[in-house]
């Protein structure tokens, strides 16, 4: 057991830190368009320096980093509070899916523009009638010659209004069992048959969109994997979403917790003294410190298990679920520490926003209930609920 970084890993981290110290552009500007352009130029800067797609193989423009280096990268980016990149979904999900299931032509066609943020990607999985039960999607694709004609509706489509490509799961065989009749397409968003409408969230923002698709055209060559294999390809996308998130998420929780402790030092507790001297608040802050340490350690234990055996250990599937609970308790405690200010929506550290935003954590990227099903069935081997 060695929980320190090897000299090579330390060198990787130091190189990244030095680069970030020189190049981190800081806070992004207000306004959707300005923020988007800011994120795009930040991603270009990363790409030019070889920091986009660190986990991708070198032959596809990535850095070919080891698993530990990828973890270090994700941690350091959050620790340095770098802004988001423009093509989050292309880098984290679309690219890895094309690398795993795409043809060589598709890899050459799509991967460079993902890395450079020239083409932004979005994800067309969920539908109004297909959320947790993703395999029941109703969006239909019908073949006409060399093209597929697609009609349906998608929802929770992040970044759709900036996107060139949509990772679209559609039903190509309505007669097959529901997991077998799906195909994974790359749909060009720049056509009139695709209409994007922003969805307003409880925070007032519009991170997500609805897609209305009315006879959109997709060339046959834009299928990823084979016709009817869409479910397996979609699972790859989702696994990448959950696996790559863990390291950044645990660091963001640690940062938020430090900020919360600072807030608590400035606030009053139940007994009128400083909040950190309120025994109940102290207990809950300490519990959050412990839980955030568990997030970090489980992420590293999962990584070591993958390196040793090639497959993720049981603790890997727990990360996203546990993180959502920790982040929700953290923001709930922040509101308690805020006292009467919890009724107001303005605060220096934006706790009321974070409190509301955290409600989505246990829903987005797989609800807690679905993740518990996965743990129960695939890790513990309990019978399927159906």
């Amino acid at each position, binding site marked *: 057991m060695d929980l320190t970084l090897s000299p090579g890993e330390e060198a990787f981290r130091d190189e990244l830190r030095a680069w970030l110290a020189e190049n981190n552009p800081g806070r992004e500007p207000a306004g959707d368009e300005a923020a988007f352009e800011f994120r795009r130029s930040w991603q270009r800067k990363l790409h030019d320096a070889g920091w986009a797609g660190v986990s991708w193989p070198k032959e596809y423009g990535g850095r070919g980093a080891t698993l530990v280096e990828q973890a270090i990268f994700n941690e350091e980016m959050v620790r340095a509070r770098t802004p988001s990149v423009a093509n989050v979904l292309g880098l984290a999900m679309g690219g890895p899916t094309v690398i795993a299931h795409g043809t060589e032509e598709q890899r050459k066609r799509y991967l460079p523009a993902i890395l450079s943020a020239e083409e932004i990607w979005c994800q067309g999985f969920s539908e109004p009638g297909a959320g947790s039960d993703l395999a029941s999607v109703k969006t239909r694709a019908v073949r006409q010659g060399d093209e597929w004609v697609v009609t349906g509706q998608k929802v929770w489509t992040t970044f759709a209004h900036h996107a060139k490509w949509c990772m679209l799961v559609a039903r190509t065989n309505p007669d097959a069992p529901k997991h077998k009749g799906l195909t994974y397409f790359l749909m060009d968003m720049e056509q009139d048959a695709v209409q994007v409408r922003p969805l307003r969230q409880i925070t007032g923002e519009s991170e997500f969109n609805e897609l209305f698709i009315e006879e959109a055209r997709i060339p046959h060559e834009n299928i990823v994997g084979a016709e009817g294999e869409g479910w397996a390809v979609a699972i790859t996308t989702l696994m990448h979403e959950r696996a790559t998130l863990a390291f950044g998420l645990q660091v963001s929780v640690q940062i938020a917790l430090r900020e919360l402790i600072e807030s608590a030092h400035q606030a009053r507790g139940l007994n009128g003294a400083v909040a*950190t001297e309120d025994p109940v608040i102290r207990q809950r802050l300490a519990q959050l410190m*412990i839980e955030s340490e568990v997030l970090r350690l489980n992420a590293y*234990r999962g990584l070591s298990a993958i*390196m040793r055996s090639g497959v993720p250990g049981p603790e890997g599937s727990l990360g996203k679920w*546990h993180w959502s609970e920790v982040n929700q308790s953290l923001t709930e405690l922040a509101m308690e520490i805020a006292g009467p200010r919890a009724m107001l929506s303005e605060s220096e550290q934006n706790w009321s926003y974070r409190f509301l935003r955290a409600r989505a954590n246990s829903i987005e990227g797989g609800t807690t209930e679905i993740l*518990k099903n996965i*743990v129960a069935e695939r890790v*513990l081997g*309990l019978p399927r609920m159906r």
Partner: protein
Amino acid sequence: MNFGFTDDQQAIKRTAHEFLEARYPAATVRRLAEDERGFTDEQWAELVELGWPGVIVPEEADGLGLGAVELVVIAEEMGYALAPSPWFSTTCAALMLVAAGTEEQRERWLGPLARGEARGTLAVWDEKAGWAPDHSEVEPDSDGKLSCVKIAVPDAAGADFLIISGADGRHYLVEHDVSDPGITLVAEPAIDPTRKLFRVELSGAQVQPLEVAPEAIARAYATIVTLLAAENVGAAQRAMEMAVTYAKDRTQFERPIGAYQAVSHRCAQMLLEVEGSRSLCYWAAWALDNEPETAPRAASMAKAYAGDAGFRVTASALQVHGGIGFTYEHDLHFFLKRTHANAHAFGDSRWHRDRVADLAGV
């Protein structure tokens, strides 16, 4: 970066698992739980054969000279098997002597401990003082004689010497001479029958102080709480496995109960808490051996989390078993009792969380 055991540590874990599985099946654990002494000389001799009483005793004193990671590996398996044994109490005594024993004390006891010729224990809680592990008010008189009452002292009857905690972090060694009227041991009824607890009454007993070594003693206590946390990891793992097996086998309303999410999600929650406890324990053990500045925080985190999780997981496993889980005939209650007792030994979860806050400057 490698959060896994070395080959040697894996081998210790495998040996411990196989040995304990063969020698401490549930029926044996139950018999020892109901037995007044709680272990046999033959069973102790087998542990001695494996070198376990001397895991952290230096090699020059016939020990194995290993570290906290190896201790934690064994403690986790001891918890999994729920093997009743004076191994824990003797390990506590060994840790204290290695940390702060005088040269004479180490010379006199470490070799016999490692060779299994002697056993020791650690007496922490005053009958009347606070319940935190550092709240003792015991002080010897001017002649170096000690009078006090300590409660919940593990395996005291079979111990050849006791280490007594006192005021200001001082500790004292007292030899256990059965003919000495200054020492009285009374078996106390305990919630957890797999670990025998005693009331120790000293009246003018002759004691020898250990060295004043606050940092080394703090490290010994941090190791002890990590061992208790590791026992809880093993015990909770076993209870979870029992619950999962039962949920697959038990049928109600024409389905195995594990197909109902009210049951399966309960089991998933057990895994979350068992794995979280395990990660913290391994980290604490590693820090004790490699990163002393992190060890106090890591050990308290492990104890607080595994203390709570151990009880919650075993209680949840009992709920999955329904009525049968509440019977004395079923083995589950032994695991619930051990994890519960461990949660309250050497600082409960509240005490350790408060320490976590202190250490972080909150």
